[in-house]
């Protein structure tokens, strides 16, 4: 929820906290809030009136605007905006003004010649002034705005905050008034409630409102207002809307928006004369019913989605967006103001189904009190009267089941029991009262607390405890040491898993964690039956179609991801991979009905190691019965699959069903967690692919491998990412070394030519410096 600091200070005249302090206070007591930016109109921007418009001689879309900048000053600027006419009051930015670009960055305006015509500055759009993102035309100001005055005197500097209102507070805090009340409770301030005169008493003649299902629309207030004169909103109101990211449209539409951001309840104004009938019905949509929205989009509706109907036609999607054709525009004289309350889940569903989220739907979808609708209606009618000359004709209020206020039994001692230190009764009573709760102290131990009607989240004692605790402040919770406890034994599932993990790692394998999704392509190649695989209903991509049924396919994927290294015949680096994780299949008998989850350990051995021997050595870690071998499968991977994946045919695999193995244990496994390893710091790795070249050389006996390696790395320079000695042979007359050289760059994929050149440099250096004979 975007907040204007100026707006808050208007509602809290005694507020002395700066924006950053407000953000901190709300973050520590209510919800995370940050200062996001400022609005500050550049002092070089002044009001001006267009006195003459001449087509640009050299450009069809440009005009030369002669403007009056006050005190007799006249200037000519080049302007391409479509929305200007003679008499328009505009924002004139003189050279030197800082103008906001599309990207959000600013540039300093200078005198310019545009297509041969000199322009003494520019007429600025809202975006160029830092007032939101609108850039379809220049900012037009009310016709009564004095010319030659700094724009900042009409739109004063403001600071913007963003409150990440939690769902439980969306009932009362999605508005400036709500936030002001919250701050008033926290800082012991008084809210200057906005002026709202009582709503008209009797029903208006001729109008009717019917509500099909009061569960989905608990309240509907309809107020016909006549004789409005459509105009621009006063600048103070426009400034408020700019601050919350809205574009001013006309006084009536602006008032409905303004009141939503002030009071929290969305409103809608229909042009009454354009409604098919003086009858409003809230009903569910017909199958396939089509409505064209305000912004010209066609929506196809379904039953269960709520519409506002007039004379059999849907004129709005309830609580989400108005329809075209009945919107308030220039010339509208009579309105029907709607202030309603809709069931949160209904709006949530419709908004999700239509993929349409508006400021209105966001508020209704999280739940509002029907009481807020009446408050917002009163405020809006007051403003429509004062700012647009409207006359309310009466009120229809369909509210068949008024909400009951809950009276909560509250034991003040419970607060201390949760807080961890004593919170006194007077402090508690003060907090609850500032939160607008009615507090009756029946005894010193039992109170009755009635929360305000807009706090839908306060329904039980635990809710009041939370209120007390957060207002009191979590920073006041005492610090202490945790209770002393006996060390707990590690359960066997953990023990056996960690032992297998250690065994696989100490046999030279690298542990991976894979995402447990798959397409089943590799699984099928490996001949793994995928009939029982569990499919994901809503995968993000095709690679998430199924839950894995075996760990092996993704382990082979891991080899492919490291294929440069894996395809080397030998390496002194570990390249075997293993994983311990869950696999799933359809079936009964597990914890979850319909799906069997089992934990496996699996390894793929690249280095020629014997999988059977490895599996045997793992089983020997445990006291098992004779049939424990059933839980293990080992062997070569399907050669055809390996060939298809261009992986070495000698790869062996191993799988141990740990869930099953647990049932073959004759004795509890014992495990001491290893002492924590020293903390390592991650070294960034290049995202560009490595290339491997081998070099084998004969050198004089006594030449050390390190010496050779030093020459390789120096001669190869930054392109050499690693040198791996993979073979040594000490002959009688010569020593032979073989290295893999890994070429890789941090900034690009290396070309063959670059690598060859580096490799030749290395060979030359080895030959020159130690007389190496390159084989």
């Amino acid at each position: 929820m975007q907040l204007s600091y100026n707006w808050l200070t208007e509602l809290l005249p005694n507020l002395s906290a700066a924006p950053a302090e407000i953000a901190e206070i709300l973050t520590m007591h209510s919800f995370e809030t940050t200062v996001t930016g400022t609005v500050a109109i550049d002092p070089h921007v002044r009001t001006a009136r267009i006195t003459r418009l001449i087509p640009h001689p050299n450009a069809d879309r440009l005009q030369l605007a002669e403007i009056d900048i006050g005190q007799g000053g006249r200037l000519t600027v080049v302007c391409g905006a479509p929305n200007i006419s003679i008499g328009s009051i505009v924002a004139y930015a003189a050279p030197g003004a800082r103008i906001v670009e599309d990207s959000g960055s600013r540039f300093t305006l200078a005198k310019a010649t545009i297509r041969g015509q000199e322009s003494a500055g520019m007429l600025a759009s809202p975006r160029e002034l830092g007032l939101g993102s609108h850039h379809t035309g220049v900012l037009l100001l009310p016709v009564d705005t004095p010319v030659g005055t700094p724009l900042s005197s009409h739109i004063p500097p403001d600071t913007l905050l963003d409150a990440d209102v939690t769902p439980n507070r969306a009932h009362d805090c999605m508005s400036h008034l709500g936030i002001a009340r919250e701050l008033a409770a926290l800082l012991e301030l008084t809210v200057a409630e906005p002026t709202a005169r009582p709503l008209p008493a009797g029903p208006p003649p001729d109008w009717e409102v019917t509500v099909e299902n009061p569960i989905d629309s608990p309240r509907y207030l309809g107020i016909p207002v006549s004789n409005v004169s459509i105009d621009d909103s006063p600048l103070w109101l426009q400034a408020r809307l700019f601050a919350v990211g809205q574009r001013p449209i006309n006084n009536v539409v602006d008032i409905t928006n303004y009141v939503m951001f002030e009071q929290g309840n969305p409103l809608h104004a229909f042009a009454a004369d354009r409604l098919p009938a003086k009858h409003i019905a809230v009903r569910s949509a017909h199958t396939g019913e089509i409505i064209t929205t305000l912004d010209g989009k066609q929506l196809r509706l379904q039953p269960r989605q709520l519409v506002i109907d007039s004379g059999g036609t849907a004129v709005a999607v309830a609580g989400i967006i108005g329809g075209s054709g009945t919107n308030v525009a220039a010339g509208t004289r009579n309105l029907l103001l709607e202030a309603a309350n809709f069931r949160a889940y209904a709006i949530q569903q419709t908004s999700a189904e239509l993929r349409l989220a508006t400021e209105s739907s966001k508020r209704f979808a999280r739940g509002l009190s029907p009481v807020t609708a009446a408050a917002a209606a009163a405020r809006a009618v007051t403003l429509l009267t004062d700012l647009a000359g409207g006359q309310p004709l009466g009120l229809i209020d369909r509210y068949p089941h008024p909400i009951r206020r809950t009276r909560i039994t509250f034991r003040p001692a419970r607060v201390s029991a949760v807080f961890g230190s004593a919170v006194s009764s007077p402090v508690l009573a003060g907090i609850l009262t500032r939160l607008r709760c009615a507090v009756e102290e029946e005894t010193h131990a039992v109170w009755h607390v009635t929360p305000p009607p807009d706090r839908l989240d306060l329904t039980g004692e635990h809710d009041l405890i939370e209120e007390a605790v957060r207002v009191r402040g979590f920073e006041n919770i005492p610090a202490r040491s945790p209770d002393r406890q006996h060390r707990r034994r590690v359960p066997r599932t953990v023990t056996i898993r960690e032992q297998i993990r250690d065994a696989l790692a100490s046999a030279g394998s690298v542990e991976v964690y894979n995402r447990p999704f798959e397409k089943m392509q590799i699984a099928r190649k490996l001949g793994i039956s995928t009939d029982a695989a569990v499919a994901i209903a809503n995968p993000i991509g095709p690679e998430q179609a199924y839950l894995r049924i075996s760990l092996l396919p993704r382990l082979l994927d891991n080899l492919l991801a490291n294929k440069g290294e894996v395809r080397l015949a030998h390496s002194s680096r570990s390249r075997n991979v293993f994983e311990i994780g869950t696999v799933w299949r359809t079936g009964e008998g597990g914890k979850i009905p319909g799906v069997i989850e089992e934990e496996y350990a699996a390894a793929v051995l690249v280095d020629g190691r014997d999988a059977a021997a490895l599996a045997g050595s793992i089983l020997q870690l445990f006291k098992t019965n004779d049939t424990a071998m059933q839980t293990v499968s080992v062997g070569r991977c399907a050669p055809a699959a390996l060939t298809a994946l261009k992986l070495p045919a000698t790869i062996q695999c191993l799988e141990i069903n740990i869930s099953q193995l647990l049932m073959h244990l004759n004795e509890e496994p014992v495990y001491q967690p290893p002492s924590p390893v020293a903390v390592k710091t991650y070294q960034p790795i290049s995202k560009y692919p490595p290339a491997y070249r081998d070099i084998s050389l004969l050198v004089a006996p006594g030449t050390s491998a390190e010496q050779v390696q030093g020459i390789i790395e120096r001669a190869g320079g930054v392109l050499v990412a690693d040198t791996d000695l993979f073979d040594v042979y000490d002959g009688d007359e010569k020593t032979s070394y073989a290295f893999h050289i890994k070429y890789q760059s941090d900034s690009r994929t290396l070309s063959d030519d670059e690598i060859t050149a580096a490799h030749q440099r290395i060979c030359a250096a080895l030959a020159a410096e130690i007389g190496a004979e390159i084989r």
Partner: protein
Amino acid sequence: MTSLIAELNRGETAARRSLNAVADASGLEAWRAAYIGRKGSIPRLLRMVKDLPLAERKNAGRRGNEIRQALERSFREKEAQINVDGKKAFSPQSAPAHRQTPPGHLHPLTHTLRQIQYIFTKLGFRLIEGPSVEEARYNFDSLNISLEHPARAETDTYYLKDHPGLVLRTHVSPLQVRSMLENKFRPPVRLMYWGPTFRAEKEDATHGALFQQYEFLVIDETVNLADLKAITTAFYSQFFGTEAVIRLRPSYFPFVEPGLEVDMQDTVTGRGDWLEMAGAGMIHPHVLEAMNVDSSRYQGIALGGGLDRLAMLKYGIPDIRLFYSGNLEFLRQF
């Protein structure tokens, strides 16, 4: 133990001496049968490992396996050598005898998880595990997240095809109720659980479709926010090896009330700003009731956070996707 290890060592010496004398394929086959075949001397000794006293078993088993693997390697090398007609020549296919088993590596998330398990068992917590395919009633309903609750719609949940009512758990919190009911636990309890969790969302450097969570829970008659603060501070201090400074601030999770966010001052990188570490709170009375725990008598605390995040902070890893990349160059750093 010493005697079995000594016997294994003697067996290895004998086998090596004998292998040096082998000159042809038939001799090699005889050697294999005598030393490393199924009935060979080394496997025979290895089978005796399981009869050793518990404390000695591990070392003997490890030593035995090392010997057997080393001998198997030597066997293959000899085999390759014989296959090139006994010609003693350098060949990349015949690995030299001095080559050592390269060290394996545990995943950084394993190191992290082990440390968490170590700290929490020391703090008296019982370690619990549960399924990652979860029933919606545990993932949502029993945690006070009704079908109509906005939090349910806002969570990007993976659903299973043909299995209505099943989801990939979006957090490990369903274990609060599941583990209490399944094990018929009664307060006082201290539980710690962890595991993979899933969100159907596009991945970026800090959000994975798969991520790991840890959570702890305490229920007794008096446990309160001061205990939450104490346990959490102790946990992060021990995990990062430096005195942790934490701050609690209000937040909202339907299954706790008060609900709060736990921030830790960044002393790990030394920048000092507040890092979001975990969500926490007092267990909501509806959730206690779902556990069959009398909420008028007992109260509980719970805290859950991202294990990936702990590992990223501790090791300075900038991108969560690295954990699941299978990149050997990354994994061999740990």
